[in-house]
């Protein structure tokens, strides 16, 4: 009989213990926050991201990642940032000329990659945004993209225990504000640094280029680098490259921002890092392959009043390249592919 009592007490104890361990899970200790180390090579341009305004922290980046893949930032809860910015394609909308948003509404532009944002001065194809902390407002509120608003997004996630915890971990308390959402998204985007391509390893003396790639890099320097300059392969200028005006989208690029005729059909020079993964190309995704892009520059550039002088040197419209040169340039462009960036689980949903 004594045995029986002991057993009963034991059983009760186990039961009680399991209850305690349950409640333990609810009051889990907060994830300790610390500064997030943004690592990048010494030859990268100076960081434009202002960490004094928005300190990048481990928990802030993690909150940003959750928000980046959060469908409830869109009107019907289905279109997260990650919907059009797919990691495997260097955060572009692979295969889609222009992006599809809420209710399958069609945007007017090809989703640009999200990489090395902390080093850029301007964002979007027309450079309308200058501060990464403000960038997400544009897709969240655009009627063809996520068609929502910051207050609407806040109202949908504010009672979610998961977010209460994440906001507390990132900001010290669980208050959800628009500024905090935007800054967390911005921290996540700042953490998306792509600097581990073959080209980078070549720069660091760790890997050799093939002879075709070396020819490509030399040709690129002669024919492309006046606009696609520096280690991010963009001078961040706006240029008219002699592309036809696409009446389907009625998008004249920088002109939409300035309404100044000199900006007609000028678009921001895009970075070429990971360009192999980001087809289709140009602001409206009109070209499906890198070959098509180079064929455009050699043969199809249309002369117009705004055509960039770089594309009309000595009276010749376009960039003179033969097909072998094009192949070499493409071989070089592929050395800008950063496999670890597109497969890093830290950036994944």
């Amino acid at each position: 009989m004594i045995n029986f009592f002991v057993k009963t007490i034991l059983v009760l104890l186990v039961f009680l213990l399991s209850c305690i361990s349950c409640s333990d899970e609810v009051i889990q200790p907060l994830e300790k926050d610390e500064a997030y180390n943004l690592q990048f090579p010494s030859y990268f341009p100076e960081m434009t991201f202002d960490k004094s305004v928005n300190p990048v922290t481990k928990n802030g980046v993690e909150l940003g990642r959750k928000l980046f893949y959060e469908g409830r930032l869109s009107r019907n809860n289905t279109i997260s940032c990650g919907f059009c910015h797919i990691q495997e394609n260097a955060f572009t909308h692979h295969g889609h000329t222009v992006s599809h948003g809420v209710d399958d509404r069609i945007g007017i532009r090809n989703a640009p990659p999200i990489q090395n944002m902390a080093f850029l001065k301007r964002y979007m194809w027309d450079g309308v945004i200058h501060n990464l902390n403000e960038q997400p407002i544009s897709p969240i509120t655009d009627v063809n993209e996520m068609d929502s608003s910051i207050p609407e997004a806040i109202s949908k996630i504010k009672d979610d225990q998961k977010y209460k915890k994440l906001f507390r971990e990132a900001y010290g308390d669980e208050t959800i504000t628009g500024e905090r959402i935007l800054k967390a998204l911005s921290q996540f985007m700042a953490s998306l640094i792509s600097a581990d391509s073959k080209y980078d390893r070549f720069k660091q003396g760790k890997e050799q280029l093939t002879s075709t790639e070396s020819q490509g890099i030399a040709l690129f320097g002669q024919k492309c680098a006046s606009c696609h300059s520096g280690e991010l392969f963009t001078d961040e200028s706006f240029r008219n490259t002699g592309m036809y005006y696409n009446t389907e989208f009625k998008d004249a690029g920088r002109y939409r921002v300035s309404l100044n005729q000199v900006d007609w059909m000028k678009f921001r020079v895009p970075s070429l890092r990971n360009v192999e993964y980001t087809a289709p190309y140009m602001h409206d995704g009109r070209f499906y392959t890198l070959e098509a892009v180079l064929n455009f520059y050699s043969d199809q550039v249309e002369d117009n009043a705004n055509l960039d002088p770089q594309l009309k040197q000595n009276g010749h419209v376009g960039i003179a390249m033969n097909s072998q040169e094009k192949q070499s340039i493409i071989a070089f462009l592929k050395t800008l592919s950063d496999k670890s960036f597109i497969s890093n689980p830290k950036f994944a949903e």
Partner: protein
Amino acid sequence: MKIYKFLSLFFIAFTLFSFVACESSRDDENPQDTTPGKLQIKFENGFNNVGDIVLNQTTQTSSNGQKHNFSALKYVISNISLIDENGNEFKYNENNPDKGAFIVDQADAVAGIIYLNLDGVPKNNYKKIKFGLGVSQKAYLLGQDGQAEFWTKAKQKGMSWSWAAGYVFVKLEGKYGNDAPSKEFMNHTGNMGNVTANQQADLYREITLNLPTTARVTSQIRPSVHILADLNQFLSGDKALTLATGNDMLMGSNQHLVDVTNNLTKMFKVDHVHND
């Protein structure tokens, strides 16, 4: 205390007896061997009157006169179940995408056929097969962690959006035109996340097909169910569809894609069953 002793003895005796009972029935009637078996499903995508679809090659003319071909042709099959002579249903990993969902991708076809292999199918004579086109809401709502394996697979196959939107159910891409297939089209069907909460159409469909020959699953016989999918149904199905600028680049579940889904739901038929 005596009663305990008696009870435990009784228990031991009973357990032993039931063991023996099992053993003997097994030994005596080998044909009644209940070891589960396997079943193979073959999907053959074609245009009924033209034959196997070769990506980027086979061109078909729709009932509305449009020439079209496919460069990508993929769909998700899940919730397969087999129905026996008495109407009993064996559900193969129901609402468990990691184990019970498959991607039929024409790019994987071997001599025109894509094979799905099912294990652990109870020995029985099956008269019908049922399967889902797409992923059911119930499975989707298990969450991303509840189907990490299939989600990754879908991602690699380009059959996923971001999680908030979910899976692509059917991916049809190719070219179309009046004289020749020249203009690109992309029709990607699939549910937009939680369809009830988001007030969206539910594109998941279940299809039941009769087997012309009974599929006799035993540990020895692995029947093979050969399913023909007639992609004519895409544009020339119950509702004849015409591709145009308004619907040639669509993804999700809007009305055109509901029509596409309803058409495709009718495209399957079991051509024959092998019992060997």
